[in-house]
């Protein structure tokens, strides 16, 4: 049963790592592009949110599975 907790921790941890790096790069590019062309700021923000939601998908699936493992499988 302890292995289930370690598995859930690995799933959530690696997902968080990847999301952190991904969002960091995305946000940095958004700031650069906004500094270059401030009139595009609004459109760029909308597109950045869309990409943030897509990036979030697989780590969120991982968190959902991790929560299920911790609370339902491992009691």
């Amino acid at each position, binding site marked *: 049963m302890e292995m289930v907790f370690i598995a859930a921790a690995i799933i959530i941890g690696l997902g968080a790592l990847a999301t952190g790096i991904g969002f960091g790069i995305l946000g940095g590019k958004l700031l650069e592009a906004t500094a270059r062309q401030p009139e595009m700021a609004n459109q760029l923000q909308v597109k950045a*949110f*869309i990409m*943030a*939601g*897509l990036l*979030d*998908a*697989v780590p*969120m*699936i*991982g*968190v*959902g*599975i991790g*929560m*299920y493992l911790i*609370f*339902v499988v491992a*009691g």
Partner: protein
Amino acid sequence: MAGTPVEYIKHHLQNLTFGKLEAGYQRFDGSIVSDTGWTFAHSAQEASDMGFMAIHVDTLGWSIAMGVLFLGLFRFVAKRATTGVPGGLQNLVEITFEFIDSLVRDGFHARNPLIAPLSLTVFVWILLMSALDLVPVDFIPHLAHLMGLGYFKIVPTTDPNATFGISIGVFILIIFYSLKVKGITGFAKELGMQPFNHWLSIPVNLILESLVLIVKPISLALRLFGNIYASEVVFVLIALLPFWVQWTLSVPWAIFHLLIIPLQAFIFTMLTIVYLASAHEDH
């Protein structure tokens, strides 16, 4: 409903399941089922023993209720629409309508009168269903408990059945419109000749392209499910804390969810529009 914290959490994560139990099955409270019949599950073990054909009645009920609320509200506003300065509710409906209109206009370039109403439905319905997550955890399940229902989850999008239902519906539309616009030969050619345009690489192409095709509904459903399920689990966890600490955690988390819930509904809608637009693409 109380007991240990683990029991509390598990209790709040179990749907109200209506299914068939075989005769001779020993139930949660020790009684034996006399004949094979359809009943509500009284424990998580019974719910999983009911098999595939069991129904989550609470998911069904709340998703239909939210659908009726959406249709009723929008119809009510549409019937009483004024051309003068709009009131508050009409303003809200008009903002939503124009938002979806601009999304579809930017993303969809073929002619299809179904797409805009479909996107509006998907967006507002998913938004309303997920917004039920903001209702404090124990309010409505406690009322249901007083009425005799053991388990009651009010957020349909925390049930993968609901999210897969919507995404499989979108998937069927993608396949239908792909076949209708491109024809069977066009569709097969698109699956078989991309990305490598050589007749020898057809097996490789088929594997890659069918993978891309299958991932679309699966990722749509699981993205929405994962986000809302994880947030619901955190709400249940926060509900376990003593009452004087709860506000410090649940208020920021609920405010964060005022962003996440519309964002996930928006992404689902946006991806639906993009997938259907690429299904209509006829080179």
